[in-house]
């Protein structure tokens, strides 16, 4: 005989931190599959290096802080950070890039700020940006997708590029975002014909559109499981679409790229569903999430179109992380029983 629970809480969620984190990791699988399919085994090497380093650094810091090591490793937040960093790094980069990036992400960006739930900035994006501004050459050498290169590096070549002295230069190609950013005095239509990465794929570049489609699928899974809300991703994607439509300029030589390119190339979908939705470093209320996502979309487009870096999601997210407490302060919902919404800054006046 089972008894009804008569005292609250009546509804319980079976989801602890680690289940949520593991489901988010699971949601990255379609995107990772597409990455491996188009960019080869280098993606998996990056992921393995990131995960191993992140777990070791998390354990080391926990040991230093005299906290239970296994308890914190089991919440899988370090694993998620490592996966998000791993999929952002260029495949076949030297082994020390993922290692340094993961140490920076876990130790500097997460644990020095107080650990899980206290980080002001998204750890994976801090790791990525530190690498990008420290080693700009290594970090912008992306290999071309398989159908442009007619095959991909085999395992021996992959390992000698990551751990040995073989140069990745033979395999690198400009990414679609770089091609469009650097086009001068050519129409977009001419660019689409001339560049093999557009010739073999759609208008966002071969491989990249499948990767973004994979992350979009994963994001829809997260929405379906109600692990994230729609506000931030939709706001980011809509802002990006509107801005790219405005500056599309009918594909002229001054065009900043089509909406399809901006939505399905680079890190757009990964950012929209896996980075911008970070519950710790993002805004808290639904209205706040909407503003946060729109800000990320705006900054992403501005940096992509007029900045010095080919992709911009990481910078945009970090800049909006700065603004998140400010957004939160002005989007606090009205508490039941109060006439006007309270502001966090009001409390000081009492």
């Amino acid at each position, binding site marked *: 005989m089972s008894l009804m629970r008569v005292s609250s809480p009546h509804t319980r969620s079976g989801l602890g931190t680690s289940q949520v984190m593991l489901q988010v990791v699971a949601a990255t699988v379609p995107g990772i599959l597409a990455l491996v399919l188009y960019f080869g085994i280098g993606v998996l090497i990056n992921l393995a290096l990131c995960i191993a380093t992140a777990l070791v650094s998390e354990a080391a810091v926990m040991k230093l802080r005299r906290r239970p090591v296994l308890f914190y490793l089991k919440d899988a937040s370090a694993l998620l950070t490592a996966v998000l960093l791993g999929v952002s790094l260029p495949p076949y980069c030297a082994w020390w890039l993922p290692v*340094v990036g993961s140490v920076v992400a876990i130790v*500097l960006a997460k644990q*020095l700020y107080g650990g899980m739930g206290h980080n002001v900035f998204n750890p994976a994006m801090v790791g990525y940006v*530190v690498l990008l*501004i*420290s*080693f*700009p050459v*290594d970090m912008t050498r992306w290999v071309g997708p398989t159908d442009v290169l007619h095959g991909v590096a085999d395992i021996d070549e992959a390992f000698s590029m990551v751990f040995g002295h073989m140069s990745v230069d033979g395999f690198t190609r400009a990414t679609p975002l770089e091609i469009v950013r650097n086009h001068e005095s050519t129409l977009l239509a001419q660019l689409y014909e001339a560049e093999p990465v557009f010739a073999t794929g759609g208008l966002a570049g071969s491989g990249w559109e499948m990767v973004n489609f994979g992350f979009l699928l994963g994001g829809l899974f997260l929405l379906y499981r109600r692990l994230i809300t729609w506000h931030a991703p939709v706001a980011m994607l809509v802002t990006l679409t509107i801005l790219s439509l405005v500056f599309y300029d009918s594909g002229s030589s001054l065009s900043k790229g089509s909406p399809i390119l901006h939505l399905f190339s680079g890190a757009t979908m990964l950012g929209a569903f896996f980075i911008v939705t970070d519950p710790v470093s993002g805004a808290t209320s639904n209205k706040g999430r909407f503003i946060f996502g729109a800000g990320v979309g705006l900054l992403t487009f501005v940096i992509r179109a007029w900045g010095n870096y080919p992709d911009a999601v990481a910078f945009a997210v970090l800049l909006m992380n700065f603004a998140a407490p400010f957004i939160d302060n002005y989007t606090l919902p009205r508490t039941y029983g109060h006439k006007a919404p309270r502001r966090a800054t009001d409390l000081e006046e009492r």
Partner: protein
Amino acid sequence: MANTNYGEITRNGLWSNNPALVQLLGLCPLLAVTGSVVNAIGLGLATTAVLTCSNLVVSSARRQMPESVRLPISVMIIATFVTCTELLMKAFTYELYLILGIFIPLIVTNCTILGRADAFASKNPVLPSLMDGLMMGIGFSLVLILIGAIREIVGHGTLLADMELLFGPGARDWRISVLGENYPGFLVAILPPGAFFVAGLLIACKHAIDARNQRRRSARVTIVSGAKRVRTTGNIQ
């Protein structure tokens, strides 16, 4: 309130009231020019010289300075010594003067110097003030050099590079390649964020050392058997 305990002045300047690690004054040059050891030594020497001289003069003129214009007078005294230092550096270490650039004239706005002039030199006799300026300057310079060394090793993999700018051509061989000639260079350590990271880590280290010393000191206090309990609330630490 003459403070003539030189031991305490020394300890204050170098450790317990260190301008860079405790007062957090003069952070602008601290963060801006500590990309290498030679920059750090150059700015440290200049700051120490200005700080010592301005403390000396402010202290000896303290009875003549009316309360209402004390700050403007102090600033003018400091500005005089900064101009002297700037001209000296221009004459003898011209390349380093070019590298440090605006941060040499900006020493005049360094809060450490005005702070010591106002908080210590205007209230204390000449010799203690001189000592205070010297020790505060050395404490500031040591932190500058430490941050410079860490950033240079992490950022470039070298130590003591370009020392000939300060110590003449003989110092060219001082350069030590700590991490090998193939070290790619961790650029973020040279950029401003690296300065904040290193300064933050040093402050954390100082707190950790202080906390450990505190624990040791309190561990030495033993409770004698038969002693009467005095405090009845709180923990005996």
